[in-house]
């Protein structure tokens, strides 16, 4: 007892908290160069931030008409608020907007459910197809007394989400098959896969989209047409699959030879060897780069604007081509940027979290 009180008297509490002034000295003014740099940055921020706040918040209009907006110099967020329903749902019949809204909410719930690694089991394999079926039913209608809506009217956020989510889910198995094909010992299959992967990775996505929009109709026999959205979707899937294949190949190469040999010596055939031994390990390693590819696939869906599909970007452009709202592009595009920023940031944050969990 006595010794304990003694040591507690002798040893001082270690300094964990440093004062604000000391923190500033350590982090901003540690030497001459850093001090100059800090002052320069602070001056720059002083020059940029107050006018920006003035423009974006203080002088801005949120729920006004465009004539009121034009009168003052502030940001005109009204361009977003008064056209919000068109920007988000596009040409979908106005009285039926609740249907895509529920479909989006369902998708978000499904994504949140799948986020938890404890839910990664067989049940998720049933939940997703059912969810996708319900979403498709809500969008398409025609059953259970729901009014049918043609796919040419699907636009805005539902189209963007659909193109990216289906693109990801369909490209993933295709990418795995391509990667396995590239690692195969059969020369014909191997070279087919290599040629496919290298060509797709060498050309820009736009050329694939052009192909789907203007070349593909020529490939089909007379009288058969395939929906424009479906063709763009196929182009995105084929494009993303080549990138996923390369990532998965990296994972396959990282698996030690002993694993392959062990599976062989157990007498497993090729399917079981891959399904039970190799792929579970390989896919786990490559989760972070895969999420990176999925993020860029999500951003790349915005390119369908170029072949005139009404995704989120195109509905915004259509709003801006209305003479009433012409000239407020910056505000509308900043709003779109925020939507993309939130989605991509959530995904990359999740990938980082997953990486940490899998490493430990």
């Amino acid at each position, binding site marked *: 007892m006595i010794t304990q009180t003694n040591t507690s008297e002798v040893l001082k509490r270690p300094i964990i908290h440093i004062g604000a002034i000391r923190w500033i000295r350590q*982090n*901003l003014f*540690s030497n001459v160069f*850093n001090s100059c*740099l*800090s002052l320069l*940055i*602070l001056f720059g921020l002083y020059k940029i931030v107050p006018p920006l706040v003035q423009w974006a918040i203080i002088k801005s209009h949120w729920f006004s008409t465009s004539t009121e907006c034009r009168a003052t110099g502030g940001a005109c967020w009204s361009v977003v608020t008064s056209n919000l329903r068109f920007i988000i749902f596009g040409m979908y019949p106005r009285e039926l907007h609740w249907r895509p809204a529920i479909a989006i909410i369902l998708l978000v719930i499904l994504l949140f459910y799948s986020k938890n690694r404890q839910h990664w089991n067989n049940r998720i394999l049933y939940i997703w197809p059912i969810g996708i079926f319900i979403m498709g039913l809500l969008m398409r209608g025609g059953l259970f007394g729901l009014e049918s809506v043609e796919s040419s009217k699907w636009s805005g956020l539902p189209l963007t989400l659909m193109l990216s989510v289906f693109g990801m889910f369909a490209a993933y198995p295709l990418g795995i098959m391509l990667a396995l094909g590239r690692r195969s*010992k*059969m*020369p*014909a*299959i191997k070279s*087919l896969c290599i040629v496919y992967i290298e*060509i797709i*990775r*060498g*050309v*820009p*996505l*736009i*050329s694939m989209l*052009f*192909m789907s929009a*203007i*070349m593909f*109709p*020529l*490939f*089909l*026999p*007379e009288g058969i047409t395939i929906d424009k959205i479906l063709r763009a979707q196929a182009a995105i899937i084929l494009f993303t699959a080549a990138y996923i294949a390369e990532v998965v190949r990296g994972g396959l190469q990282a698996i030690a030879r002993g694993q392959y040999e062990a599976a062989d010596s157990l007498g497993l055939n090729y399917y079981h060897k891959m399904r039970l031994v190799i792929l579970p390990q390989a896919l786990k390693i490559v989760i972070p780069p895969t999420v990176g590819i999925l*993020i860029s696939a999500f*951003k*790349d869906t*915005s*390119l369908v*604007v*170029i072949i005139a599909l009404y995704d989120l*970007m195109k509905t915004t*452009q259509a709003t801006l081509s209305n003479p009433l709202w012409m*000239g407020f*592009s*910056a505000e509308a*595009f*900043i709003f*779109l*940027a925020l939507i*993309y*920023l939130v989605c*991509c*940031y959530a995904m*990359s944050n999740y990938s980082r979290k997953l990486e940490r969990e899998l490493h430990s």
Partner: protein
Amino acid sequence: MQQESKISDITQPAKVSFWNDPDKRAIVYQVVTLGIVGLICHYLFSNTLANLERQSIATGFGFLKKEASFEIGESLIRYSAADSYTRALLVGILNTLLVSFIGVVLTVFLGIIIGVARLSENWLMAKLSALYIEVFQDIPLLLQLFLWYAIFYENLPSPRQAINPFAGLFLSNRGMVFAVPESHPAFRYVFIAIIIACILSFILKKWAKQRQDKTGEIFPVFSVYACMMLGFPLLAWWIGGAPTKMNIPKLSGFNFDGGVSLSPEFAALLLGLVLYTAAFVAEIVRAGIQSVSKGQTEAAMALGLKPVLILNLVILPQALRVIIPPLTSQMLNLIKNSTLAVAIGYPDFVYIANTTINQTGQAIEGVAMIMFVYLCFSLLTSAFMNWYNKKMALVER
């Protein structure tokens, strides 16, 4: 008897049925796969031929010699609407190369600065760089292009009220115009002088390396090199009569006359490409620098190397090895992303090929040309970077 037959079974390889022999099975798989792929190709090909015949579209590249009859906003070579499609497409290729080359150089430069700033001791600097990287990575490039273009086009005044931040530079919704030195024969000498300086410094570097290998003496290559690169052109300029007259842009009618102008399309495309790709390059540079362990620096210090030499001989060679492969793929991305020019109307190769397709209806040839050209760009860039990578790779003994 039973025993004997068993032994003979083991010593003589048992006859494997056709289906259980992996080698033969592989042949069957491959033949089937090739057959299916061939059938699909044949099906699509015959459909295409039938469709083309029905729509009476001639196949082949004969249309390339025809008159293009459309104007192109900006061009590096002389071009008019009376020229052929071949020349129009060449204009597109040159424009793509121009924006890609300037873009790659600026991106690497900006990416390195931001990547280093991300690791700065200065809290503000590090946080600002991190914010930049996160924000610019997460916004689609196309959206960034639209945003920059809108800012240039809508928010800048007309040429009459052009913003003039300092003498010789004008910003308006017609683009950026700046003053350049007026053409003079002296500048030809300057150009020749730069080439001579490059050749001489290359020879000097080889000689200095040989001498260092033989005698161990170090020749101050870098300072001599800098002197030559600055001194030779200056000397040529002075000998040529030291012209100082500037070609200052003047307002005439609705636009500027004289100087060099950058169109808002080009400026928006370049700005978007550089800011977007630099965010990715910055992350790569940060990871590369962090991959060199602190012990390497300390070991170099213990050997008594100067800070410049530590950076040049110890840190950079190791960091570059980590940096180059992902950097290559970012450069390829930049080249491929330059195709987004078509969305804001900069006449790059895709834009002109697309116009050609719309005018002639030669969709297959047009898309094939786009794919072929970008495939060539990609292969050339990756060949160059692979060569550079091999040069930089660790020489293991």
